[in-house]
């Protein structure tokens, strides 16, 4: 070979962009997705209140998509980071200050909802242009965003995860009947490969971590611990919290009620809904009848309303089952094909919906 060194240099120069891109992808695959989400947040174009509302209404399916709505925004950079975040193989670690107890700030939840909104609007843009594959890619980004919002299992993140997942399913359902069988199959397959959603019992179990932290703080500095919960005491009577025994009784009382709630949450389907409703009724009755409010103050103030959370998780679960059926049957979906399912096909407002037989939930599948 006459010019070996020059040839090697030429080959390296030609391959450099590809090599650099490969190195970048490898690097982002090992990056904590939370960091990539924050980088996306740094690149978000500023939105006015009206613009943000308009985007939310499109993502919620309340108003139709119009191309001119997003023309003025440059979402390229934030979406680039979002795509990197969802392909990262590293665990999503938000670095939350758990020691803060319920005063812990979780600003990522608001941003994750904003990302989900933007990605769903961009998916609508792709579907409007007939770019189904591109739209499906963005739907999968939105599914990932929902999971990473709920990756840290506490109740609020669980609620947000379910809200974001349902909205993504609703967007997919509005369009999937116009996709061909291959596209529907591809989306169903990729959806089934997504990481699982965090569960409500898992999130409820974490509630005890708040109580452990709060009990410790109460014993160390009652006033500060009380302030964190935004509580003030007003009484001319003697201070009951001066007695450490009462503090233990208070947290023990919470733990006992929590255990009953957990037992109800571990049931499935209708049995769970009935058990949770009964649990909440009993708890309210106990609190009303029990005059020793101090001992039950944690239960009264800190026990979440599980009923609404169970409803949210069940709605997500049935929404996923509905979408699976819609993707399977496509435009040929019929009542006969849905036999045995906990939902039925109904005609509503000139379109078609899948309506739950047990829950207050329906999924619009055709206009």
């Amino acid at each position, binding site marked *: 070979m006459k010019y070996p060194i020059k040839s090697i240099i030429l080959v390296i120069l030609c391959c450099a962009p590809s090599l650099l891109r490969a190195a970048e992808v490898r690097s982002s695959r090992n990056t904590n997705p939370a960091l990539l989400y*924050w*980088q996306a*947040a*740094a*690149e*978000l*174009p*500023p*939105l006015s*209140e009206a613009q*943000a*509302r308009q985007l*939310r209404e499109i993502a919620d399916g309340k108003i139709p998509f119009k191309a001119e709505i997003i023309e003025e925004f440059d979402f390229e950079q934030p979406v680039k980071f979002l795509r990197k975040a969802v392909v990262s193989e590293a665990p999503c670690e938000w670095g939350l200050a758990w020691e*803060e107890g*319920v*005063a*812990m*700030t*979780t*600003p990522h*939840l*608001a*941003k994750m*909802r*904003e990302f989900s909104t933007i990605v769903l609007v961009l998916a609508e843009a792709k579907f409007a242009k007939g770019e189904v594959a591109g739209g499906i890619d963005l739907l999968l980004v939105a599914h990932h965003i929902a999971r990473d919002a709920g990756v840290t299992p*506490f*109740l*609020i993140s669980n*609620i*947000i995860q379910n*809200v974001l997942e349902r909205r993504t399913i609703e967007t997919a359902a509005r369009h999937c009947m116009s996709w061909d069988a291959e596209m529907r199959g591809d989306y169903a397959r990729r959806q089934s490969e997504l990481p699982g959603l965090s569960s409500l019992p898992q999130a409820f179990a974490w509630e005890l971590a*708040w109580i452990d932290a709060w009990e410790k703080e109460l014993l160390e500095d*009652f*006033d500060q611990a*009380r*302030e*964190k*919960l*935004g*509580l*003030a*005491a*007003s*009484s*001319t*009577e*003697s*201070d*009951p*919290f001066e007695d450490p025994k009462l503090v233990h009784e208070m947290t023990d009382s919470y733990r006992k009620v929590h255990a009953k709630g957990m037992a109800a949450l571990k049931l499935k389907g209708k049995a769970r809904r009935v058990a949770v409703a009964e649990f909440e009724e009993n708890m309210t009755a106990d609190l009303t009848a029990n005059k020793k*409010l*101090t001992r039950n*103050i944690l239960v009264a*103030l800190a026990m*979440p*309303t599980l009923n*609404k959370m169970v409803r*949210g998780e069940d709605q997500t679960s049935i929404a996923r089952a509905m979408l699976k059926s819609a993707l399977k049957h496509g435009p040929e979906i019929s009542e006969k094909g849905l036999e045995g399912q906990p939902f039925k096909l109904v005609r509503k407002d000139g379109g078609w919906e899948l309506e739950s037989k047990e829950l207050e939930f329906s999924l619009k599948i055709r206009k």
Partner: protein
Amino acid sequence: MKDDNQDLTELLQNDAQRIRESEEFDFILHQDTMRRIRLEEPGENRERGFYWSPLKVSATAAIAVIAAVLVFRFDEPPAQPETKSGQEIAQVADPEPSSVLSYRNAFAEGEDVLLAMLDQEARVVLPRSAAVFESNR
């Protein structure tokens, strides 16, 4: 010949002049003047009714200022005594924005309330202009 009223008028004018010269209200001067007015004032004039004079205007203004200060002071809400923890516990302060507690309280009111809070905070708490993002640019 000067009548009683003329004497009194001159006396008041002199006092008024002295009051104008002093920067601050002089309580001793005021008392002294009042005493001299009472001494100089003829018996039959004591009942002849109220008339304005520079001294009276000044004195009235001073009293009005003191009264106003007192009234406004007592109109302020009384300082809350420091409460000790007890059996009546109420939620008093709004929790920190974006905190788990603030979101839980919002969810207790309804899912829509929670979502509205998140949407508001997405724009307000961490906009792109936040200092935390400066290092990215």
